[in-house]
């Protein structure tokens, strides 16, 4: 193809505090082309699309639309330039009608008065164009997710979008609706729209994409035409990287008695959860976003409890309906979003480390005596190598690694039996990562158990004794220590029969 690219992004870089999200990424999309982007969670896909959509400004690099250089400072500018992004979470107003949603912010008015009839007609025409049988006057809340998706697309077409970004459009759709959506993508491609397609579903990607780009750790791995990119290659490129040697050695002895046993665990986001954690064991939980791995952690700590099934700790059934009950039962939680869920940022390092102890003690306990005395907790903080000039300083001033270590101290002080880690090293530098892995190992070796939920696959493989892989709310498989990233990825993608496909491709 010789056409000038409708979209060309070159040398895009973007850093957030502590993390380089994108590093010199080049990406382009021709008119009438479907260009898929694949990558693990955190590879930089969303950041790249947010830059394209004007939500973020790149630190370096340039964006050209049909050859013309553009700088977006606001999402609206991107929309006016013909870029439409359909996000994973739909952005429709549920209590307004389809037509009102399509025209949201761009209502047709005559002399300042809304022209509802014109909007209805245009909406109907747009919906017809994409083959959607939807009444423009129906409230959005009465539509299925698939239909809402179509409304989003109609909304994008209203702006005469030349570039349509679809972020996991089929994630919430069943087989039939997905196929219909893919047909629509084909139709739009025929009309000359450039489509950037982000998906974890490999069969879909290889069926629809003209070209495929793989992102990993904020860098582009390669861009290839579909014919040169069998699923196996894609998966390898998504996960392939050197295993760092800073993971602690596996335990010398086999795990002990069962500490935590979950049977038939289920709630709105989970189904048929059954697994156990033995003394001395680190159990990893892998899965893509929305696979239910976060929901599993929340269920274990009573934040979004199981509505069915049983949980037993040391053989005794326990109720985990609130975080407080889970804490009392001996389950500790280290949330992935430390700032929002883990820390009281304006309180001191000491107070944060003592938070759980003080929360579980009797109300009339003196706050600064015995186990709560500064000297006692300072010793524990020093043992964990939390670096701060003064443990009385606000914890918000510490680095991510030191904050995480302080939260670990909080649960060590409480002497919990099971710790549930979510993304334990997100945004943490390498040295602190190693220290946290060592601590996890030491905690498990002391006869207790760890459940670690992570999107960082090398981390899971390096630190976990066993990996549960989740897919669509259930556990799709279990892998022993030593499993490869590709095996995990295949289970996470729900591709139980992947090797055959690879052979066929």
């Amino acid at each position, binding site marked *: 193809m010789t056409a000038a690219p409708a979209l060309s992004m070159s040398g895009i870089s973007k850093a957030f505090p502590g993390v380089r999200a994108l590093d010199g990424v080049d990406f382009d999309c021709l008119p009438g082309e479907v260009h898929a982007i694949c990558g693990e969670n955190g590879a930089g896909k969303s950041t790249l699309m947010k830059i394209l959509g004007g939500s973020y400004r790149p630190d370096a690099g340039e964006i050209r639309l049909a050859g013309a250089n553009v700088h977006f400072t606001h999402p609206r500018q991107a929309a006016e330039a013909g870029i439409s992004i359909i996000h994973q979470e739909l952005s429709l107003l549920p209590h307004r009608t389809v037509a009102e949603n399509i025209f949201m912010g761009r209502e047709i008015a005559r002399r300042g008065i809304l022209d509802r009839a014109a909007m209805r007609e245009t909406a109907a025409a747009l919906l017809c164009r994409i083959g959607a049988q939807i009444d423009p006057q129906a409230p959005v809340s009465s539509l299925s997710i698939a239909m809402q998706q179509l409304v989003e697309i109609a909304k994008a077409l209203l702006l005469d979008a030349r570039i349509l970004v679809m972020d996991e459009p089929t994630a919430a759709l069943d087989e039939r609706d997905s196929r219909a959506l893919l047909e629509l993508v084909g139709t739009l491609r025929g009309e000359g729209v450039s489509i950037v397609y982000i998906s974890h579903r490999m069969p879909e990607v290889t069926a629809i994409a003209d070209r495929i780009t793989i992102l990993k750790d904020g860098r582009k791995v390669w861009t290839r035409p579909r014919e040169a990119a069998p699923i196996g290659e894609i998966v390898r490129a998504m996960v392939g990287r050197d295993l760092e040697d800073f993971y602690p050695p596996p335990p010398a002895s086999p795990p002990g008695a069962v500490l935590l046993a979950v049977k038939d665990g289920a709630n709105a986001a989970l189904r048929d959860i059954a697994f156990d954690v033995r003394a001395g064991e680190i159990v990893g939980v892998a899965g893509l976003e929305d696979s239910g791995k976060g929901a599993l952690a929340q269920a274990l700590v009573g934040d979004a409890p199981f509505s069915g099934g049983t949980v037993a700790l040391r053989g005794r059934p326990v109720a985990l309906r609130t975080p407080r009950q889970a804490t009392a039962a001996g389950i500790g939680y280290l949330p992935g979003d430390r700032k929002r869920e883990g820390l009281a940022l304006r309180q001191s390092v000491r107070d944060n480390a003592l938070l*759980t102890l003080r929360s579980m003690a009797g*109300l009339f*306990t003196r706050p600064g005596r015995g186990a*709560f005395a500064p000297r006692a907790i300072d010793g524990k903080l020093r043992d964990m190598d939390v*670096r701060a000039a003064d443990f009385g300083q606000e914890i918000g*001033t510490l680095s991510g690694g030191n904050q995480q270590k302080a939260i670990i101290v909080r649960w060590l002080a409480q002497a919990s039996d099971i710790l549930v880690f979510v993304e334990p090293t997100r945004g943490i530098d390498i040295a602190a990562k190693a220290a946290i892995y060592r601590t996890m190992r030491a905690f498990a070796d002391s006869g207790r158990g760890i459940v670690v939920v992570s999107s960082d696959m090398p981390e899971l493989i390096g630190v976990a004794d066993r990996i549960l892989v989740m897919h669509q709310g259930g556990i799709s498989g279990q892998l022993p220590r030593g499993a490869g990233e590709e095996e995990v990825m295949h289970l996470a993608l729900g591709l139980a029969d992947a090797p055959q496909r690879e052979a066929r491709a």
Partner: protein
Amino acid sequence: MSPLPQTSSPLRRPARLAVNAGLVIFLALYAAIAFLQPNYLEPGLFMNFLRRAAPLVILACGQLYVILTGGFDLSMGAVATLAVLAASILINGDPETTWAVIGTLYVMGIAVGLVNGLVVAFLKVPSIIATLGAMLSVNGLALAWSGGAARGDLPDNFRNLGRLVWRGVPLVGTLPLAAVVLAGFVALAWWGLNGTVYGKRALAVGDNPRAAELAGTPVAATRILAFVVSAVSAVTAGILIGGFSGVSVNAGEGLELQAIAACVIGGAQLLGGRGSIWSAVFGALSLFALFTLLNLIGLPQALRDSIQGVILIAAVGASLWRTRRRT
């Protein structure tokens, strides 16, 4: 994503300034008062100042509990009014019943505090709305009960709580009973925050309720208790007000905003997570000193409210500016 080297932020000391800010403002204002009216330096007049400031200081201590947990209690003034009106109606001049009625007042106050706390903790109604509703309801109930005008009578043993002054006390010369009540209440409030784990829990809840909950903190109980303490302080203040001002249907009017302003002037942070009992005590003394000063200058009473409004905004603005500068 590849990690960047973490830059360690410059090390900062925790802000102890907040405590001193209220004290400094109070000393400056009191110095100004003494400059205009030198006899304010005599122990007797200072004790009298304390006696008149006592209700506000007590209210501020109660309000502080709620502010630390990240809320507001706008119903305090109404509860104080209720306490005054209910006392005069129930006691009706019979000194025998005073102590039983005082017990009843506290039960009523605790009930209001519990309702506030339950509504905020479980219905998740923002505290500013929940307590605004409680303020209107309690005010309305108190007025309906009293028939819209002060009725009944307060016997001397009740009124003494607010106005009795012992003379010939060594060192200070005169000692108002209200000042003793004040000291006792402040000591209790201090103990609640510093002598039990409650204070640390309240700070954590006000700072980040989500993190506190996930760490096992009983967030709902912590919030409810704060509203109960606040209501108890309102009843206590009401009893003192009834003592030295007598019965009136607007006895507690506007006191809730004064209490909030006092806490903020003293350095407590609105929406929670920072502040100490001294924020409330010195903030309230500062505010009361300011009112006294404005009186001495001869400013009309009505302008006092305007100035209080300006101060509230300025104090919150200053505290936000301080926070922004530090981060």
